């Protein structure tokens, strides 16, 4: 763990130089979405359709989506760069650090980024009056879990494949997931066949749980199933990341 913290410190050092630029994407964007969708679009969505104000519906969905987006961005180009451009991972491996520490240090950093973004976003939600339950506090650890469920497999991909993979990744996987995983409308509106795909995404599992938490009344078994499914993505992702890192860095 101590060694992983040393790798983590590198990412923090880099982040200290660029944090201003990330505020826009990780905090302002979701708040703008919230204002446009929750309040703007929400004002023409009839309450009876969902049984609750649209703002309350979309707010937890965006929280989960923010966790995904921050994690995906921080696990793509930065990881590729540490292997291919500034080659900092090679520098780390010339010291007592090992591959496992590199993976863990990076995931710790992604966790930090997700946590900060989500806390700021939650503050905005509270200000908009979109939080209705003390369970909402649990969305903080949940956002970490969602973030890692994306960060781990994406960092494996970033280590393994060339940067050409990022365009399709964001265009055909992250973006559609953002739109169709229950973030903006219930997945029950999606026709059968496609709906099952939505259920299988880690984002839907995160969105559904986040929604139950901010609106109150999560059921134990359903929540545990979501958590277990997200954990599965984390565990398999970390396993793949360690393999991919080792393949690229220890030859």
């Amino acid at each position, binding site marked *: 763990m101590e060694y992983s913290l040393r790798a983590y410190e*590198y990412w923090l050092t*880099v982040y200290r*130089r660029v944090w201003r630029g990330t505020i826009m994407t990780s905090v302002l964007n979701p708040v703008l979405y919230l204002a446009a969708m929750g309040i703007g679009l929400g004002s023409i969505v009839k309450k009876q359709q969902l049984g609750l104000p649209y703002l309350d519906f979309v707010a937890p969905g965006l929280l989960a989506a923010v966790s995904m987006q921050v994690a995906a961005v921080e696990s793509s180009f930065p990881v590729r760069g540490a292997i291919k451009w500034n080659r900092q991972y090679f520098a780390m491996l*010339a010291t007592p650090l090992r591959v496992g520490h590199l993976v863990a240090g990076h995931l710790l950093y992604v966790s930090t980024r997700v946590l900060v973004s989500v806390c700021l976003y939650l503050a905005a939600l509270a200000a908009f009056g979109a939080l209705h339950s003390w369970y909402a506090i649990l969305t903080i650890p949940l956002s970490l879990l969602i973030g890692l469920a994306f960060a781990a497999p994406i960092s494996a991909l970033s280590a393994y494949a060339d940067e050409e993979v990022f365009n399709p990744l964001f265009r055909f996987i992250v973006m559609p997931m953002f739109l169709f995983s229950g973030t903006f409308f219930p997945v029950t509106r999606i026709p059968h066949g496609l709906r099952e795909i939505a259920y299988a995404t880690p984002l839907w599992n995160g969105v559904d749980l986040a929604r139950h938490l901010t609106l109150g009344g999560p059921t134990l078994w359903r929540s545990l199933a979501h958590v277990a499914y997200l954990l599965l993505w984390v565990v398999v992702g970390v396993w793949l990341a360690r393999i991919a890192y080792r393949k690229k860095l220890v030859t």
Partner: protein
Amino acid sequence: MDALIHARGLTKQFGSITAVAGIDLDVTRGEAFGFLGPNGAGKSSTMRMIGCVSPPSGGTLRILGLDPVKDGSAIRGRLGVVPQADTLDNELTVKENLVIYGRYFGLSRADVRKRADELLEFVQLSERADSKVEPLSGGMKRRLTIARALVNDPEVLLLDEPTTGLDPQARHVVWDRLFRLKQRGVTLILTTHYMDEAEQLCDRLVVMDGGTIAAEGSPLELIREYSTREVVELRFAGEAPEIGEDAFGDLVQRVEVLPDRLLLYTDDGDALVPVAHERLHPQSVLVRRSTLEDVFLRLTGRTLVD
């Protein structure tokens, strides 16, 4: 046994390609040891195995008495590595690069800051401490990489082509620093393409070719064993005439025919010059001492390998 590096039958394979084909090595404490060889000779692969970042495919390797496969992390804590391609973070400042690297070794923040200032002084980069790495010249980056490799006060410094791509001034600064480290008792292990670098810095060296060690010894020993005392270079206006190895009897040990030149390897240049003049009528004649370059070309050939 005081061998810092001990290798027997050390092998490295990448799929069906054999990069290092069973080499034996012993490097002792305080020594400056060099690997010479053309591209693809296996120098860098060997260095990466010694640096504990590349597991050997076969043979024995002990570094500081430890097994790099089992104790890689502990060994790396006592090595300093200057890799062939820089691994500096261009977005961070000179000092940040040093500090973060020191932190990888577990140095405290206060210690590493102090150490960074000393090292920047040592490599003459103090004025650039707060500048980003990006705009630095190649020589400055190289010096920073050397400073970084010293942050943990290593017992052994591994340098993979430390001065490739540098201008003569920058090379001399690097040599000077390396020489000082050697005087302080740091064991240096380096690879190089430059014969003058090898002659300047190395107590002992090996010439690698095709993954094996072709020759081993001090620069002087190698010249004595694989070349003659002097070389007479004859230059011709057109093509150099074809002559046999024994054209000059005992006076010439070896003849090399190049497109417009003849190289005559001899122990007595002064005696050879008038004879050669009379027999071959060259356009110009040059007598020089044999160098490591002659040894190198003799052992590894003149043809390009990449």
